[in-house]
């Protein structure tokens, strides 16, 4: 194979690495036993490797081209950037996907692109890759396509027929941020395209004979730390997006210094811990019944505590709700106890029907019993009622460690 293609692969993988989304789950189960094609989906998605940043490599994540007519300050591919440009042909992407897939390197393809010529032309090219994979090669692996917000409804409909998931990035959490850093993008266009996807996804749900449309739903990404939005603003935007468009996931991508970055942006090291806390907070909203506002309530600057996880931070601010009796409290309350995950709570409720749970039972059910201790009551344990929140925080926060890249 020509080495020119290999350097294209390097450029266009490098250009795609700032998109945090990686999931390959939620597709309907299928396999290739009764066909000529290749591939399967298991419903769960498989991470085939991990990069040294701990992110999962599940899909061949590349751009069709990194040329772009837009000039978004946070993006390495903006038209005023001096990066090397490259463009794959449709056939090249198809070949790479199949060859990687056959060797079990990947679950499928995540294809995005800079905007070339116009939105429709770009979308057409993305759709063509997916169409060739599905129709010409019988590919049954996972396909995630980026939907271009300004593209025609007809092209979006075609994309949804071939792809397992479509996504549109909201990019920045606030309208003002977007206006400042992505002057050619509009919140309203992005949102109405998401709304259109939701309507199409809902329309085929439960209709067995309907043509398929993005069965694994839609997701989005937000860049964190490029504009001035605080965590309260970010979580409130997320709550609105989840409620409005039935998103499967929101990816938070800590703004990362990029080569040849724009003067408009802060050149700070990425707040990776902040990104991590946002994911934890997002989790609390989706699986633990927390409202966005209560997660950051009581914080002066609207930011999550970087030192401790948001659930523990919430519990320390709401000491009056604790301690809870492990053998009696209802599920909603147990879910709010630091150190008890949703699965632990289910096990716990199952087990206490038959046994009175004691402290060593709890220790076997959760790996985080140390964090839970001050908030729970068992027949053999009652926390000291008056221990001070600040002291408690100091005791429960992970020991500060020397930050090292090579730990």
């Amino acid at each position, binding site marked *: 194979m020509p080495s020119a293609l290999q350097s294209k692969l390097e450029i266009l993988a490098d250009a795609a690495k700032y998109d945090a989304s990686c999931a390959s789950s939620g597709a309907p189960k299928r396999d290739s036993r009764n066909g000529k094609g290749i591939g399967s989906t298991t419903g769960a998605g498989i991470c085939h490797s991990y990069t040294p940043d701990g992110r999962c490599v599940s899909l061949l994540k590349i751009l069709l081209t990194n040329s772009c007519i837009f000039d978004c300050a946070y993006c390495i591919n903006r038209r005023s950037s001096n990066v090397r440009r490259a463009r794959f042909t449709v056939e090249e992407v198809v070949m790479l996907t199949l060859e990687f897939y056959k060797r079990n390197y990947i679950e499928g393809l995540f294809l995005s692109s800079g905007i070339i010529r116009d939105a429709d032309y770009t979308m057409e090219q993305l759709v063509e890759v997916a169409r060739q994979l599905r129709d010409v090669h019988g590919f049954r692996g996972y396909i995630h396509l980026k939907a271009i917000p300004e593209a025609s409804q007809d092209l979006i409909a075609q994309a949804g027929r071939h792809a397992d998931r479509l996504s549109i990035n909201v990019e920045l959490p606030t309208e003002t941020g977007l206006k400042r850093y992505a002057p050619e993008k509009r919140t309203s266009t992005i949102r109405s395209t998401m709304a259109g996807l939701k309507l199409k996804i809902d329309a085929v749900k439960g209709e067995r004979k309907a043509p398929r449309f993005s069965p694994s739903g839609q997701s989005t990404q937000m860049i964190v730390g490029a504009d001035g939005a605080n965590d309260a603003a970010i979580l409130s935007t997320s709550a609105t997006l989840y409620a409005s468009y039935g998103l499967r996931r929101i990816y938070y991508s800590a703004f990362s210094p990029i080569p040849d970055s724009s003067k408009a942006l802060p050149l700070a090291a990425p707040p990776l811990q902040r990104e991590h806390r946002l994911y934890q907070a997002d989790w609390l909203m989706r699986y633990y019944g927390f409202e966005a506002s209560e997660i950051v309530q009581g914080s002066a600057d609207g930011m999550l505590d970087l030192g401790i996880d948001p659930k523990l931070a919430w519990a320390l601010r709401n000491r009056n709700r604790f301690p809870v009796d492990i053998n009696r409290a209802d599920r909603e309350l147990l879910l709010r106890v630091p150190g008890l995950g949703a699965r632990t709570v289910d096990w716990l409720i199952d*087990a206490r029907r038959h046994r009175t749970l004691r402290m060593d039972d709890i220790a076997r059910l959760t790996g985080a019993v140390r964090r839970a201790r001050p908030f729970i009551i068992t027949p053999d344990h009652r926390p000291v009622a008056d221990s001070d929140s600040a002291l408690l925080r100091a005791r429960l926060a992970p020991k500060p460690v020397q930050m090292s890249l090579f730990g």
Partner: protein
Amino acid sequence: MSTQYRIVMHEETSLEEFREHVRALIAARVAPRAVTWMTTGDDLFGATPLPDAKIPKFTVPGAYVELAREVLHHRDPQRFSLLYTLLWRLLHEDRMLLSIFSDPLVYKLRQMQKAVGRDLHKMTAFLRFRKIEDDDGERFIAWFEPQHLILKPAAEFFVKRFANMRWSVLTPDGSMHWNGRVVAFGPAVTKAQAPAEDSMEEWWRSYYRATFNPARANPKMMKTEMPVRYWKNLPEASLIPELLAQAEQRTGTMIEAAPTAPRKVRAPVSAVAEEGGEAQSLAALKTQAAACQRCPLFCDATQTVFGEGPADAPVVFVGEQPGDQEDLAGQPFIGPAGQLFDRAMAEAGVDRSRAYVTNAVKHFKFTPRGKKRIHQKPNTGEVERCRWWLDRELALIRPKLLVALGGTAARALTGKDVKITQMRGRTVHLRDGMSVLFTVHPSYLLRLPDAAAQAAEYRRFVDDLTQVRLALPALARAA
């Protein structure tokens, strides 16, 4: 001292064989501590024959069978004895034992089950095929070193995924081969029998190198998800030390490098029309309204839902605000309330396509709750700000009659609080030759809990709409 029994498992991962043994043990009432479990490898003395006993009928919770099936693939020689102890306790102590995750034995076996599941998952993830060519064409061969004895349960995954390829998986515990029709299991082989390279591996390494962002190095996280014991057979793992070693320097260089002069590329023509002067048509007004930020409601709503209908409509229906469906689709009155409205209009004989339908407030106001949006009533300030658009719609259409659907619309049209309960069905002269008829909002009908009240109120609503048709004969539906 009571007799010690030796049981030999010939096929150590076989549930069927294990089941035979435990059935006999239970029948002979042999307590777990009286059994020594062995596999053929350490079978120096052979099995101790069990006393003959009629095997009683007994049932075992389905969850136990599942647990045993999976735990048997664990490499720990203790597993047989632990599983038998659990069975003994299930039958003699507590049938609900499996629900008690905090029981030490249940906990230990669940951990083993989890370890097997995880290893199986990692095998589907970290196994790498290498391609060779033989007389029949392409063949794919992988060398993999699983932590547990999972070759057989792993087969299904690879058969389903690579059904139309010929492939082999070689492991230190055994091998399996797929010819496109059946899987054949064979003896253990050595790594030397697997191909040493593949032409795509250099490509895969290129991809892996390029997809790593040095500013985010986090090797601890990586090792949690991709344990080091799997690295030696992953072609990309050889890059990890080098990538990590360079990460800090690469990041530093990026941050320190002065921004280069931006490439001069002509900006594309912007497709977005800016808000201009006074709109002369409904279409122009609608475009202007799309960018409306007169009140904060635009922040969370999807889009401005503008009015719809002919520019010369003799009647304008005004609702409160768009709802969830309207917000998503960008059209007024299409959700549940809109459908009820359509039904009532049809019964009253009014042609909706001849009418203009709009809302007092053009953005959806809501509070997010999980995966739903809860409708919030717009406040007076929001209604006042949005009147700017409503007034311009009315100025361009110049209808004869306005229909206020509910209190918010009445407020927007009259500038006053109007009690719909008192004014319902009445028409009031407004200004510029326009009159306004007051009625309820169709969503009010949907909210009535009592079916009889709902039917009665619906009749009154149809009556109100009939008044519209009588006042404006041009609206009558051609039927």
